[in-house]
């Protein structure tokens, strides 16, 4: 144990988070295969995995970069719908499902990344909470655009329209996106295994990034922008790198999430979802990877567990959130936590300032 403690803080976080995910998979996967997990929980496995990735990726923006984003679900949405369209377009061409899913995930990630770039370039240059405002608007805009988007596929390829199904002008084609009804007839090729692999991939990227030249630059900007600039760090560039990485991972999570259902509507990824992901991050601890994973699992399951309280369910949920938030901010509780968990989670509950002050010295 002593030796374990002496390892670099980042390496330690890495080992714990990989172990946590692999262990969770090793226990749940056999149970699921044997049919020992009840139906409702079994249906939650893919969403939980993807919400973990959404929270981990948002933590990159909020915890490591120190910028507030209120439209993370927008990137999930862009990824989800572009991935669904890609998978539908490839259905005849690639028969092997995992490969089709992989390509859809990559395309979803790229599309979300491009949107992240378009938003990030103008907004991340500004100092202040502009990102929060713009991402908030973006989430709503994306939702409305997808709501009136019609996409279909036939032998001649993809057809896109903003009017209605008829104007797609397809002969014998298949409708993929049907305006307000969202994506229909999705081939459900996503799986628990795919979700876990995606978590491991997200962990790999984030943990590596944090422990590198680029990651240190990102955290330097968060801790003290003026000092970071004074040692030659290109602030806009590294903010953009963190933000785009975060968008790409969110988009990928969106694809795996969407391909788990037969239909999905744009309303699923609205402001409430963005806030839900943000709550996972804040309660898990900003910049805390292990904490984010645990918080996501617990808080995602909580409404299910509280089902018997029926009408009071969300009320109790809210009260629990407030209590947890108060507790994790309490110095004494933090001390007890960090002692009992052997300093594994010593960084949890640490509140990171969103913006440094900008006085002249």
């Amino acid at each position: 144990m002593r030796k374990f403690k002496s390892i670099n803080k980042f390496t330690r976080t890495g080992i714990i988070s990989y172990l946590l995910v692999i262990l969770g998979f090793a226990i749940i996967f056999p149970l699921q295969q044997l049919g020992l997990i009840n139906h409702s929980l079994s249906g939650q496995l893919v969403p939980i995995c993807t919400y973990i990735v959404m929270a981990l990726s948002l933590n990159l923006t909020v915890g490591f970069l120190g910028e507030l984003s209120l439209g993370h679900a927008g990137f999930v949405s862009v990824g989800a719908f572009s991935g669904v369209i890609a998978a539908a377009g490839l259905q005849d061409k690639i028969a092997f499902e995992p490969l089709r899913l992989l390509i859809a995930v990559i395309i979803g990630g790229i599309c979300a990344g491009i949107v992240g770039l378009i938003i990030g370039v103008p907004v991340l240059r500004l100092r202040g909470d502009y990102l929060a405002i713009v991402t908030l608007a973006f989430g709503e805009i994306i939702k409305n655009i997808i709501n009136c988007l019609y996409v279909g596929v036939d032998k001649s390829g993809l057809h896109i329209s903003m009017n209605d199904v008829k104007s797609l002008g397809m002969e014998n084609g298949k409708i993929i996106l049907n305006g307000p009804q969202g994506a229909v007839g999705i081939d459900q090729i996503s799986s628990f295994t795919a979700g876990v692999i995606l978590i491991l991939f997200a962990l790999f990227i984030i943990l590596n990034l944090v422990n590198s030249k680029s990651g240190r630059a990102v955290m330097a900007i968060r801790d003290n922008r003026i000092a970071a600039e004074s040692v030659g760090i290109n602030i806009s560039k590294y903010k953009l790198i963190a933000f785009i990485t975060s968008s790409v991972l969110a988009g990928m999570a969106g694809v795996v999430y969407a391909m788990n259902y037969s239909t999905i509507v744009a309303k699923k990824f609205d402001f409430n979802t963005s806030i839900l992901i943000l709550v996972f991050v804040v309660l898990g601890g900003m910049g805390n990877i292990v904490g984010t994973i645990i918080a996501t699992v617990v808080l995602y399951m909580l409404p299910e567990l509280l089902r018997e309280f029926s009408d009071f369910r969300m009320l109790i949920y809210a009260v629990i959130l407030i209590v947890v938030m108060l507790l994790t901010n309490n110095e004494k509780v933090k001390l007890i936590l960090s002692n009992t968990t052997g300093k594994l989670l010593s960084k949890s509950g640490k509140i990171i300032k969103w913006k440094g002050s900008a006085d002249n010295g």
Partner: protein
Amino acid sequence: MDKMVPYPSNSIVPERDLDKKPILETHHLGVDFGGLTAVDDFSITVGRTEISGLIGPNGAGKTTVFNLLTNVYQPTRGDIMLDGMTTARKTCFQVNKMGIARTFQNIRLFSNMSVLDNVKIGLHNSINQNLFSAMTHLFNYGKSEKAARDEAMSLLEFFDMQDVADSEAGSLPYGAQRRLEIARALATHPKIILLDEPAAGMNPSETSELMENIRRIRDNFGIAVLLIEHDMKLVMNICEGICVLDHGKVIAKGSPDEIKSNPKVIEAYLGKKKEGDANA
């Protein structure tokens, strides 16, 4: 101005630097904040291995000069030449790459990070690692990280801080934080380093150690040092040239001895102190 003679006739640059082009020149530099002229007509020339001082009463505009030199503020008038190149229209991080590094009057460390990481962040632009190897830890990741670690450790050793490399920067005592800030600035491989009140809050033994360190920085790295300081003993002891600022204007320039006996300086700065002493 005649290009063949880069140094003005009233130059205070030490003789050994006179045959080389100056590292820093400012010409009639000035900045206004709304109606307030914080700095006006500020012209200095700094030799390549010179230790020079910038002094003046509180609010004289010294920190503002540093902020102009590092492009934190854009000058309203005048221009800055760093190693013969203008720094106009450059951003903060670009002027650092051009060879100017600084410390801050109120220490600005990355306090949640380790001492070693603070110096590694200073090494940012000399670490040869692209985004792909950063995300995958493949290719030259291992080599570049090891090189960065080795250089950061040798910088920490220079300041006798190798034993606290893994401590959190914010947990260090005040004097050590100031040293770390200098180490981080040196990690950017500057040609000139600006120190804003490096001795503030230090006890006499720490101050004399600092004086020794400033000389060692100049000798070891062969760079110029420009420092702001209120501790007159330190300034008079190590600075070869001194520039005195009052209400944003240069009121005197010269060697320590010249400054000590300059009536304008005594009136604006030292004089006030003497009055106070007499009253006490």
